């Protein structure tokens, strides 16, 4: 195995919420988690609100220090890096967010925005060479040179996200973290940006950590996918394997819940219907955190936290955290019911 670019070793994030000492509550946004990202790899992190995927992104990019565990960059603990080491790290690990407009300074022009990281992180690039690089990157992300003089407010959502990508990529990072980076974009623009990210990875070998709630989108850019729930890892597998034979009931429910843009297929689809009530992250369930919504939970799930273990069939790179991994999960009713229920009596 190649040496990882970045590695999390039992990294956890716990926030303390509430102002007065008596009201303080602990919120474990990310349970102790390990993750290895190899150079050029593309990892997808999928999960719903509160699953810890954004906390993971913040730990990986050192925007938040882990409250426990370590983050290693090329084998060196981030916490031990000196000023120069941190600068090298920032140059190598970049992030783009869901809403590009909130991460672009409204008073800076597109040209200034894209040049800024060069000035801060690449003192070796002479100021005279910056405009050439900016122009090259604007062109690479599909923006015309004429946009360099515009301001963020004048951009469409898709254009603003391209500016954010150019800004993140201009220092030639080795890892690009995308936190819901295409979720706010319209369908036709989303496809353009996904293709751009895929081509950047293919041409420049930049590793991607792609975080999304959308499995259909994540499938396009990831070779390995991790599924998270309430701050914990539920399942991880190579992308093809995850879509072909998911073992965790939560992954199966997620896969089965994605609507299909085809009326015939969509109306016959029988998703696994979960209890829609999410547990409070302040008071997570004992044992398996998914058990309160799990259709196949048994008493054992209340008592014992399931370990992250190899999938029952031992497929390479496939791990699951479930006592009953691979067991059948009952499906729900299709949208179109062949014989509608009798209309209820009026009055």
């Amino acid at each position: 195995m190649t040496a990882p670019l970045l590695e999390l070793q039992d990294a956890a994030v716990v926030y303390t919420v509430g102002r007065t000492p008596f009201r303080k509550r602990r919120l474990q946004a990310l349970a102790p988690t390990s993750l290895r990202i190899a150079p050029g790899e593309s990892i997808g992190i999928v999960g719903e609100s509160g699953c810890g995927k954004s906390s993971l992104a913040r730990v990986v990019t050192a925007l938040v220090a882990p409250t426990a565990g370590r983050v290693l960059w090329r084998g060196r603990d981030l916490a031990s890096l000196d000023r120069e080491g941190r600068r090298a790290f920032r140059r190598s690990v970049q992030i783009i967010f869901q809403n590009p407009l909130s991460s672009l300074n409204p008073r800076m022009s597109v040209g200034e925005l894209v040049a800024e990281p060069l000035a801060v992180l690449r003192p070796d690039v002479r100021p005279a060479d910056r405009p050439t690089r900016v122009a090259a990157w604007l062109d690479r992300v599909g923006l015309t040179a004429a946009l360099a003089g515009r301001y963020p407010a004048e951009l469409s959502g898709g254009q603003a996200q391209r500016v954010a990508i150019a800004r993140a990529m201009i220092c030639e990072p080795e890892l690009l973290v995308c936190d819901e980076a295409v979720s706010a974009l319209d369908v036709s623009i989303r496809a353009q940006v996904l293709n751009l990210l895929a081509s950047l990875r293919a041409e420049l070998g930049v590793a991607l950590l792609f975080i999304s709630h959308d499995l259909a989108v994540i499938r396009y850019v990831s070779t390995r996918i991790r599924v998270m729930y309430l701050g914990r890892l539920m399942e991880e597998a190579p992308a093809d394997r995850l879509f072909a034979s998911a073992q965790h009931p939560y992954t199966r429910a997620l896969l089965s819940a994605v609507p299909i843009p085809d009326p015939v297929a969509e109306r016959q689809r029988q998703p696994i219907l979960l209890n829609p009530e999410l547990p409070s992250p302040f008071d997570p369930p004992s044992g398996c955190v998914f058990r309160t919504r799990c259709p196949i939970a048994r008493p054992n799930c209340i008592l014992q936290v399931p370990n992250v273990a190899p999938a029952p069939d031992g497929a390479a790179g496939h791990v699951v955290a479930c006592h009953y991994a691979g067991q059948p999960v009952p499906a729900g009713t299709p949208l179109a019911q062949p014989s509608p229920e009798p209309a209820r009596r009026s009055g």
Partner: protein
Amino acid sequence: MLLVVSGLRVSYPAPGGRVTVVRGADFAVESGECLAIVGESGSGKSQALLATLGLAGPGAEVSGSALFEGEELVGMPSRRLQQLRGDRIGLVFQDSITGLTPHMTVGEQLAEVLVVHRGAGRQAARAEAREMLEVLQIPEPDYRLGQYPHELSGGMRQRIMIAMALLCRPSLLVADEPTTALDTTVQAAILRSFAKLKQHAGTALILVSHDLGVVAGLADRVAVMYAGRIVEMAPAERLFAAPRHPYTQGLLASTPRLDRAPSAPLPAIDGQPPDPASVPEEACAFRPRCKVARPACAAGRPPPVEVAPGHRVACLAAEPA
């Protein structure tokens, strides 16, 4: 026909003149039917609907006609519109937390709808509210009625909003991106609530959404909007199986789906959606992004042509099948 909208135009004041966001929309909804309006941001899909219901923003100019159960909604006094909304027309929006009052229990808010619109007594109203929660298969209805909005999850709040919209047995329910803010596994449950409603005494549904998967599950007919106009309208199965407008085709192709092996790269529509302020009045608005555009597309706006029963397309390249 329950609702017939014709020649609807909506414009807003803007620096340097008015900006037209809906440029002549025609659609109709029958009792018990689900019409979906799809389109991307700025296509005018929400504006067309809000204007129809008298909910367009300040400064809006609305023209055209919207006949609901024989009454003209465009230009109707706001008092009368208020009576209709919540009674004959139910509304569900994307953001359910702003639709509920934080200091009243769910039961009080649901009952209030019936007290205001139907003059019902508190006790009877509450009983009817409870019954509606049962119809929508919301678990533990009595417990829910006693809860405050902040105690509910997003999915449960959205189901309460649907129940509230249905309380007066409206003949039309309008839902604008009703599941967009929800998690996928929660969305599945909400979609089933909407499907229930179709079995329910003939309530028509207008569903505004950007999500073609959601639309595929519920819609009987689909209207596709682009730059303020409906560019294609067809029965749902036909629209998804045989789209004729290049924009609809592009939209479907660029939607990633889980039931098919991914093709790389994902087919995308080139270019950007137009800025409503610079849409040409007398040319096809999709022309700059269209792969099959011809010179004639710049010369005039393509009129909607019926290519099959109930299937209208506004594109010069679409010939009758």
